[in-house]
């Protein structure tokens, strides 16, 4: 099995739109937007692909930083951005379709911004 | 044996009593054959009776109490239509009573003010307008051959009607598919899980009301197959065989065609069946009227 060549470029939030625009112009498709909580910071990965060429850009932000939506370039990004908002509580600005927190309704608010949940639910029998 | 004026009444009574049994049995055979076509064992032969028995054991949950009235009217007028037919009444009157009963079913669906029933009702109406002209043309065709709209006269006719009305017969089979609620025309409701609009017209009927609808269907089956009989009335054996073949054909169609959309249904029933019927009648008309 040959491992895939994956590059990840870290950039500043301010440069996000510009970088995404470049990908869009070069004809990349948006593979995913994913968020990871590392310590107190959040890493957001924007993954793009063109002809099996996989590119990542990453922004690292604090939980209350507002992230601009890339739905201007990629119409389908709303699905990831809403998810990011509902699971991590990251505010996203200017989504084309904004579910306003009803995309995924969870019992715990912003579950992925919480520390590991320790309560064990289910029957005790 | 029976005094002359009571013969029609006798036939009507026989229909009222026997038709549900026969209809249920037909439905049972239908399900069995369908299952075999799908490589399954299928339900017991008497399953439709179990189903209806079950439905009457259930709670009568209604969205509005007026549903009861519409469903009852549906059954009653379906019985009236069938009884009129089998007692030898006027075909056109039978057709009007038949339409009346269906309108009640549609109204029952409308009454519940639910999206799925509503869409089902609209589609049922589309089906009604699709099949009605063809059924009227069938009656007209019968008239042109036998010079009577009365089922009793048509029944007694020694003429092999089918030979004069092949186009009408095929057209009738097309609309029969609509009426038997079989694919490709099972738009408004169907027996199995209906993928587009849940159960369409019957979505919001439950328990005994649904059971009544089912019984009305049985009455309807017998009536509709009775019309096939008329085409072959001169020979009862051929008539029975024709009904069996036609019904098997309907089951086969049901199993080998996808559901169509309403536009195509309307087109099939109006353009294809209508043209078949009209051309047939036109030729007949020409032969009878113009060439004496």
């Amino acid at each position: 099995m040959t491992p895939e060549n994956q590059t990840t470029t870290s950039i500043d939030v301010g440069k996000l739109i510009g970088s995404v625009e470049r990908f869009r112009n070069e004809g990349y498709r948006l593979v995913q937007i994913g968020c990871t909580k590392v310590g107190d910071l959040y890493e957001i990965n924007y993954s793009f692909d063109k002809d099996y060429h996989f590119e990542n850009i990453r922004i690292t932000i604090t939980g209350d930083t507002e992230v601009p939506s890339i739905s201007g370039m990629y119409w389908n990004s709303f699905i990831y951005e809403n998810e990011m908002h509902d699971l991590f509580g990251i505010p996203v600005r200017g989504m084309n379709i904004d579910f306003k927190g009803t995309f995924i309704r969870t019992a715990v608010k912003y579950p992925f911004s919480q520390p590991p949940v320790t309560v064990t639910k289910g029957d005790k029998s | 044996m029976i005094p002359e004026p009571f013969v029609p009444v006798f036939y009507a009574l026989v229909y009222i009593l026997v038709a549900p049994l026969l209809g249920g049995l037909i439905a049972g055979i239908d399900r069995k054959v369908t299952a075999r076509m799908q490589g399954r064992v299928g339900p017991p032969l008497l399953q439709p009776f179990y189903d209806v028995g079950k439905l009457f054991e259930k709670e009568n949950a209604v969205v509005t109490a007026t549903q009861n009235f519409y469903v009852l009217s549906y059954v009653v007028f379906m019985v009236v239509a069938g009884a009129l037919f089998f007692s030898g009444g006027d075909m056109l009157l039978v057709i009007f009573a038949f339409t009346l009963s269906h309108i009640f079913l549609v109204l029952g669906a409308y009454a519940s003010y639910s999206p799925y029933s509503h869409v089902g009702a609209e589609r049922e109406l589309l089906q009604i307008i699709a099949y009605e002209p063809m059924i009227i043309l069938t009656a007209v065709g019968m008239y042109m051959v036998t010079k009577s709209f009365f089922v009793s006269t048509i029944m007694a006719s020694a003429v092999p009607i089918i030979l004069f009305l092949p186009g009408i017969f095929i057209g009738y089979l097309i609309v029969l598919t609509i009426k038997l609620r079989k694919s490709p025309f099972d738009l408004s409701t169907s027996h199995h899980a209906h993928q587009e609009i849940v159960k369409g017209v019957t979505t919001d009927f439950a328990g005994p009301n649904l059971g009544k609808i089912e019984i009305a269907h049985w009455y309807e089956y017998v009536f509709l197959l009775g019309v096939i009989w008329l085409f072959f009335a001169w020979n009862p054996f051929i008539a029975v065989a024709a009904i069996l073949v036609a019904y098997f054909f309907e089951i086969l169609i049901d199993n080998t065609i996808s559901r169509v959309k309403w536009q195509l249904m309307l087109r099939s029933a109006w353009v294809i069946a209508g043209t078949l019927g009209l051309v047939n009648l036109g030729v007949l008309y020409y032969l009878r009227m113009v060439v004496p």
Partner: protein
Amino acid sequence: MSKQITVPFGPQHPVLPEPIHLDLVLEDETVVDVIPSIGYIHRGFEKLVEKREFTDYVYIAERTCGICSFVHGATYCQGIEQIMKIDVPERAQYLRVIWSEYSRLHSHLLWLGLFADSFGFENLFMNAWKIREDILDVMEQTTGGRVIQGSCKVGGVRRDISDEKLDAMAKDLDRIDRDMKELTTVFLQDSSIQHRLRNVGVISRGDAYHLGAVGPTARGSGVAIDTRKLGYGAYDRLNVQVVTESCGDCYSRCAVRAKELFTSTDLIRQAVKKIPDGPIDIKVTGAPDGEYFMRAEQPRGELVHYLKGNGTKFLVRSRIRTPTLTNIPPLIKMLQGCELADVPVIVLSIDPCISCTER
């Protein structure tokens, strides 16, 4: 008052075994507006990585979805193996391919059946599922499970298939091929089906690509994305044929899947021919430290498992981006202006798997 009808489509609706939720606004039978909503199956198990050792998480990854269970397990394992630089034995890689392709057969047959049902062709549904049982039998005979196989683990596979069994499987495929041929002919040829599928839910090549369509949804529009071409597992040693269709309608998507059935059986035959002898797993020591985006081709398209470890037994993050999630935006585009009767057909044409999507 406008002549509109609001139809609450789902969460409970007979067309799909899964809860999907659409608000349809109709004018007559034409859909003028469709507003989707998801979240009925969101369990949030990605967060369980914080509590399960990375070797045990595979049991959860497998249960992401009951249809493509094996692919999820395998993708997860491969991702971990990439981070940890584990060299998985050849035989295990081939076995993973074989099971993946059986999964694809099972998934596509299941889909063909459901799809047939969505346009009211019950007999075809029954037939497709009848053939699918043969595939499931093979699955059960080789892994012990019908739908949740559980035969993948980090570092290899948990079960071997004997060579005799492999030969028997390959031989059996001929019969299955024949049955599938009969089945797919109906899908591809029957005019009543064409009436329901042609020019329904059309999405252009450009839209499909830019809206992020993957898998058969993209390939139906002529976008030749097939992650198997990346050559993960043993795919780099097999000849993977990418099936594409150009129309971008439901028929094309159906055709892609119907034809992929045969590429799958072909791949299985190739793998059976090439599979080497040897061990099926390797002992895993240590813990993953690093991250990787593992991409694999699920029956529904490109699947991405993002895994990030920090050197402990517990991963920091597992994120599963499933093909259905990324196929939802194209779906929304497809549904605009269709007819009510087409809604189930179009929704099913992307082969939605909501439980994957929402995790």
